[in-house]
């Protein structure tokens, strides 16, 4: 396959940045999208140019590091996969592919396609944890959890924190991410201790980071590689109202 890549290049956070076109040839349709960029980068290094910087780690769709907007869609044209799981057979010979970083005020570009996603870390630090006793391993069946609850919690826990929800939302809102993290713990008995303070603190941090609010458009869920459902956002809202009414935090 022969392709034209239109890639966002930006030296650092202060640089204005801009698109640069690259011609690339003899790409196998069986290559992954990231392998295709690896090929481009090897070529750039050979020529003595600065390779295209991009985030990646596990390359099997579970770490949440890869983050590219490909032809206007986070993680590219396929449903429910990350960029690393996207293959070149999803494109046609001769295509021009536009590659951009996540765009959000809260996620500033560090370099090229790499953005700073530490706002997610700070949201997690604000309340995305549970209190547990140290010591011996507890008995597996000591706490009864209904199967459907475990399933729902697991669906929420599938969130890999990649930020595609923020990237796809017209408001760059982090509600789907926060809702998955709040839901996952609100559904399980282990999460009950911090249940009320968690949702208050995580939402406060979300607002402080400069993410937008939710307009319930559903773009986040549609572009989420783990297909996190909007029902979690509804649960997050319920958790918030209930915390505000019942908690003793004034």
């Amino acid at each position: 396959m022969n392709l034209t890549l239109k890639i966002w290049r930006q030296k650092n956070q202060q640089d204005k940045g801009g698109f640069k076109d690259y011609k690339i040839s003899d790409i196998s349709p069986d290559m992954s999208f990231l392998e295709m960029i690896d090929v481009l980068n090897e070529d750039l290094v050979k020529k003595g140019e600065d390779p295209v910087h991009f985030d990646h780690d596990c390359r099997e769709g579970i770490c949440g590091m890869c983050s590219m907007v490909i032809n206007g869609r986070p993680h590219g044209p396929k449903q429910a996969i990350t960029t690393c799981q996207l293959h070149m057979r999803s494109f046609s010979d001769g295509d021009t592919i536009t590659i951009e970083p996540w765009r959000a005020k809260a996620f500033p570009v560090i370099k090229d396609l790499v953005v700073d996603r530490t706002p997610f870390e700070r949201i997690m630090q604000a309340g995305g944890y549970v209190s547990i006793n140290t010591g011996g391993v507890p008995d597996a069946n000591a706490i009864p959890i209904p199967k459907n609850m475990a399933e729902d919690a697991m669906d929420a826990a599938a969130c890999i924190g990649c930020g595609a929800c923020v990237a796809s939302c017209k408001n760059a809102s982090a509600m789907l991410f926060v809702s998955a993290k709040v839901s996952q713990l609100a559904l399980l008995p282990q999460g009950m201790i911090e249940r009320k303070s968690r949702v208050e603190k995580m939402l406060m941090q979300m607002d402080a980071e400069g993410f937008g609010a939710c307009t319930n458009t559903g773009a986040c869920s549609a572009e989420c590689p783990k297909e996190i459902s909007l029902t979690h956002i509804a649960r997050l809202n319920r958790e918030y109202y209930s915390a505000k009414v019942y908690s003793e935090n004034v």
Partner: protein
Amino acid sequence: MSWFTKALSGSVGKKLVMSLTGLFLILFLIEHLIGNFMLLKGDGGVAFNEFAHFMKHNPVILVGEIVMFIGILLHVIDGLALERKNRSARPIGYATPNKSAVTSWTSKYMGPFGIIILIFLAIHLYDFFRYKYFSPVDNMPGTDISDLASLVYIKFQSLVYVVFYVIAMIVIGFHLNHGFQSAFQTLGLNHAKYTPAIKFIGSLYAILVPLGYALIPVIIYIQNISN
């Protein structure tokens, strides 16, 4: 700030205010439409005038009116605040728009629709208050009931006014199409059994109610030119 105002000033709190005031205004649209339909009764506007007279002198309605104006005000203030926050959350946009039609078209433009509706409302309320307090219309002959209907019939003789009214109703329809179901989601009411029904009723409401409103000036205009 007290815990209460703090709870309503975060992004979810503001959405809660949008949702509750929005649902209240959705209910108000029905009451208003019932009144408007009386203009088509063919009695020269007597029923409409009597209904308006009743509404003007009913203490429950007067309290409702105050609540409604507060509702509109909160909906506008929080709506503008959210729109501002949301726009600032992405200073640099994408070069290629996301063409996959996964989200409803109306959900993307709630702010702009809202601003168009606000402009319509400003003109509408200017007329309302002008005739209510500053230049009261004449009473119907032999009664103490003011003849608002004649005023409406005169207004709807202008094609420009009728077209503007119809366009505003179409925009309200778009706004309602997303707003109706979005209000329930914001309240946390998302359920496998009921959400599809809420979405269906919302879309139906967004078509029928604005259609009902838009038909009235169109019918009055057509009746007027055919006479």
